[in-house]
């Protein structure tokens, strides 16, 4: 088990071996301090409890938010962005939202059943809020000021006397590989600047200019599943179609190549 400190929170790395050696969930919950057991976490944090699975702050201050859900035109790419932006006290345009990438995003199962905001949205709501809390706590430590007198705004934490530290500098060198807590200090809904306000859908400009807002290779081929092909492949497909058109050719062609083409007619 490896423990580091970041903003006063314990970041714990448990290896799989340690977990299994613990003999099961119940044993682990007795053996380890309570916050380390992912019980009662809101939304999809329950399944993916580490904060940095959802929010990354780069040393240069760039913020990336991850969701396992897919934008299908239901607008979640924009809505999740609003949630993250509100809780991180950032303009939405300063956040990159990564959706449904098996290499990079939490596994949130299907995007279906109107569950995205309930599960992913809730996770991001709390992960972003807790990330902000961690950044403010770290700023409090460095500035020697109580966290309640600090304000997170536009990518930095400011003290009343004007001293400020950017998010990137606050995280520099450290990861947010900490487990989420069950409760977060959410932005007061009365003070919402982004949540509940209209934000133009971020995917629409790409969709009206023929850009890549849709999944790569999103057009299935006409004759069976095929990703982007070449005209050479289409020529071959056209040859097969032509051979299949004259059904009397099937099986009776002299030329073995044509016979082979005819055999493929059953599948054309």
């Amino acid at each position, binding site marked *: 088990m490896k423990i580091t400190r970041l903003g006063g929170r314990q970041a714990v790395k448990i290896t799989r071996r340690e977990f299994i050696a613990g003999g099961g969930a119940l044993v682990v919950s007795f053996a380890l301090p309570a916050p380390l057991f992912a019980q009662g976490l809101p939304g999809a944090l329950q399944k993916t409890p580490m904060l940095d699975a959802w929010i990354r702050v780069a040393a240069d201050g760039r913020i990336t938010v991850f969701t396992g859900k897919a934008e299908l035109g239901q607008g979640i790419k924009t809505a999740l962005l609003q949630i993250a932006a509100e809780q991180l006290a950032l303009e939405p345009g300063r956040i990159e939202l990564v959706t449904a990438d098996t290499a990079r995003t939490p596994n949130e199962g299907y995007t279906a059943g109107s569950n995205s905001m309930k599960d992913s949205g809730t996770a991001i709501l709390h992960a972003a809020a807790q990330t902000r809390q961690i950044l403010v706590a770290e700023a409090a430590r460095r500035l020697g000021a109580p966290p309640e007198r600090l304000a997170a705004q536009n990518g930095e934490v400011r003290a009343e006397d004007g001293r400020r530290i950017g998010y990137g500098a606050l995280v520099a060198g450290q990861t947010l590989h900490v487990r989420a807590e069950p409760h977060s200090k959410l932005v007061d809904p009365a003070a919402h600047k982004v949540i509940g306000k209209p934000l133009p859908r971020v995917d629409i400009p790409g969709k009206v200019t023929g850009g890549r807002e849709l999944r790569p290779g999103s057009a299935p081929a*006409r004759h069976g599943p095929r990703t982007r092909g070449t005209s050479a492949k289409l020529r071959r497909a056209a040859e097969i*179609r*032509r051979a299949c*058109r004259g059904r009397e050719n099937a099986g009776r062609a002299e030329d073995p190549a044509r016979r082979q083409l005819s055999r493929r007619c059953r599948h054309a």
Partner: protein
Amino acid sequence: MPRTSQARCRSRARSSRGGTRFFLHKGPYRPDASKSAQWNRGAYLAEGLGHCGACHTPRNLAGAEKKREAYAGGEAEDWHAPALNAASPSPVPWTADTLHTYLRTGIAEDHAVTAGPMAEVLRNLSRAPDEDLRAIAAYVASLDVRPDEARAKQPQPREANGEAELRGKAVYAGACGDCHDRGRGVDGGALPLQLAIGLAIPTSSNLAHIIHEGIVPPDGEAGPWMPSYAGALTEDQLADLLDYLRAMAGKPAWKDARSEARKLVSGKP
């Protein structure tokens, strides 16, 4: 009989008032005792209320139907109404059964889907009682008096020859073949065109309309759909395609393919 087809007949009659005065046959329908009750019912409906001859019978200069060429083919609203008698060009001869299905649904096996003015007629006829449709079908089927052996003879497709037909063949391969070569009953399939009456009638007009305008159900209704090629095919490309399709029917070239294509694509006479 629904109102709309009556209105169409009335407007035709109005446009040839002189003909009406001289050529109108007055009096009640006189049944033919040698025929069945169903046939007579069909004759009564077709000759009277349905007035099928108004489109399907050629007219004289006074605008009256030529009685001696009943059902030898006519025209309606720039479409050709094919012959229903022994001159029927239908590649697959009609039977009372297939006619009944066609009148009821607008489509029958091995026959083209309805289009043009007939499509509107059938939208109304589909609401008529089924026994009336069976009666009309029985009557109309009887008009083609050819013996079965004569009806079965089908012209063979001839090879495309000449540059226009060869160009048309290339257009067909890229624009039509993918659906029409599949045949009906498969996803995306459409009637193999050798079976389509539009290729067999004396004028390219119907086919030109169908290719240029597509087959589109009325707003909000379900129905067979063929995409329109307006905008995709130039006047020359449409004419070439018409020429090739005529070769597919095994018939001599149409004389009006170029002019029909020009009329539809360019809007010029």
